[in-house]
């Protein structure tokens, strides 16, 4: 758990502490910090006590099934929704008081990239330009050329992929320190998706900007993200670096003639133990070598360490519920 011990059962920092880490604008080491962030719609808890830390300069995959609370979280980070509890800081600004200043440094691509259809491409660029304190015309021109977007075409006449590309250009125009993408590749064909993600990696992440990308398409996350968090039913169930996750989160299949020790489930690094035929399937989330060593000391008749795909990891962490995957 490199990124902020984000599990819900981990003791959350105090609200006062959260404020202290986020009020000094621009000095925070993290692009996003949330502490106990929650949003309720009637009786539905869309986001529940979210403690999340997104390091600056990271490409952060924010994943979860449909309805997990990803968009609600993003809307709270952008000041579009008010939290019912908790606090959030973005780029060092406490959102309760500095949302406007934070937004000047954020580029945002909304789900489905809904833009003003009656405007032409050059008009919506000019319109958006007027809403930001700084704007990079050369960068916008370069991306327009890269994506081959016709300036004089009406936005409503663009394909879904082209709209997403235009939305990305509009989000990058103000040279944001943080780029928030909400399901950006949803509905795109594979080629457009690849180009879109390549652009993010090549241009944005390489420039040191932070990318916070919500998606339910795990292959997108695997392609670009270096950190990942899983949200399920409004709760954060996993947050880690991708490397740490792939190296340490494994399954160990073991058959022990003498039976499994009673405390196996409580071994450090062991997350869960399940009976599988004559043996056991052990979910390990850290200290793999130590767990393997202890198992080998029990003289197993069979021991196998099984690599897990990102999909398997998240299905496992989501409590056995299958994610909607692309």
């Amino acid at each position: 758990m490199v990124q902020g011990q984000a599990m819900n059962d981990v003791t959350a920092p105090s609200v006062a502490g959260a404020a202290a880490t986020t009020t000094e604008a621009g000095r925070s080491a993290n692009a996003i910090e949330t502490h106990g962030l929650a949003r309720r719609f009637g009786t539905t808890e869309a986001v529940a006590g979210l403690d999340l830390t997104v390091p600056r300069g990271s490409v952060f995959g924010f994943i979860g099934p449909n309805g997990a609370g990803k968009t609600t979280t993003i809307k709270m980070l952008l000041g579009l929704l008010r939290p019912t509890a908790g606090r959030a800081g973005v780029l060092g600004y406490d959102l309760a008081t500095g949302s406007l200043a934070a937004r000047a440094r954020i580029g945002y691509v909304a789900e489905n990239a809904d833009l003003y259809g009656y405007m032409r491409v050059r008009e919506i660029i000019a319109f958006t330009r007027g809403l930001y304190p700084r704007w990079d015309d050369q960068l916008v021109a370069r991306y327009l050329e890269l994506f081959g977007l016709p300036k004089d075409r009406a936005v409503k006449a663009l394909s879904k992929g082209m709209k997403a590309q235009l939305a990305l250009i509009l989000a990058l125009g103000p040279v944001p320190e943080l780029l928030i993408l909400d399901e950006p590749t949803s509905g795109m064909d594979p080629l457009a998706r690849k180009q879109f993600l390549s652009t993010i990696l090549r241009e944005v992440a390489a420039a040191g900007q932070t990318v916070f990308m919500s998606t339910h398409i795990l292959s997108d996350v695997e392609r670009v993200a270096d950190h990942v968090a899983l949200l399920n039913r409004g709760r954060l169930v996993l947050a880690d670096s991708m490397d740490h996750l792939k190296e340490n989160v494994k399954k160990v299949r073991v058959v022990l003639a003498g039976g499994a020790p009673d405390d196996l489930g409580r071994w450090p690094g062991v997350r869960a133990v399940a009976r599988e035929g004559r043996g056991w399937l052990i979910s390990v989330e850290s200290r793999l070598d130590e767990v393997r060593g202890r198992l080998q000391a029990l003289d197993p008749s069979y021991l196998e360490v099984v690599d897990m795909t990102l999909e398997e990891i998240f299905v496992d962490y989501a409590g056995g519920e299958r994610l909607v995957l692309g």
Partner: protein
Amino acid sequence: MRENRWKVWSYAAVLLVTAAITAFTFNYLGQMLQGAPVPKWAQGQLAAQLAAYPGYAWANWFGKNLYQMATLYLILFGMTAVASEVSRRTSSFLWSKPVPRGTVLFSKWLSSAAVYAVITVLGTLLLYPLSLAAGHGYAIGRHLAALPLVIATGLVVLSLTYVFSVLLDDAVKAGGATALALLFLSLPSWFQKTRHWSLFYYFTAGPVAEDGSPHWGFVFLMVVLAAAVYAVAQRLLERKDF
């Protein structure tokens, strides 16, 4: 404002046509109504209107057509201001920008108010040369005196529409709700004793009709009322979740 272009042009066109009809139909209306079955209660009012062009022009312009058209178009201008951002799903794009919600709302309100005021003034001014061309004259000063009150009262209608546009996420519903609210506000005008309490008494420049004075006090009152109603809309917007 670009999305409202058709509304702007159609409001201008409607006022132009209304001014032309007012100016050029006076001579024929009396003849057309001769022998027509006019209800007894309306006969006196009709005879008074048709007795002289100045009264006819006033009654048709300020007493009937202008406030009706203005009400319709002010609702059309205002109902989309916020509600349409939600229904066409551009609200996340707009409100995530580093501009205070109040600034965006006020710029929308101001552009609609300016368009409404300019077209209303131009339409009212246009009635004069059209009337002269039709062979009629009237004291234009009285018409000019009525404009501040008509425009200020229109701003109340616009602000009220903004309240519903913020409250309801559907422009048509916002327009309908505004129309219902205005219908309610018009109730006092149905009775002679309470007509001064109706918004439409001022929208039809009732006080100006009585003595020809601009009634700046009422103009100020309407501006304050418009500002207060607008403040409600802005307050609601600041607290609104998107």
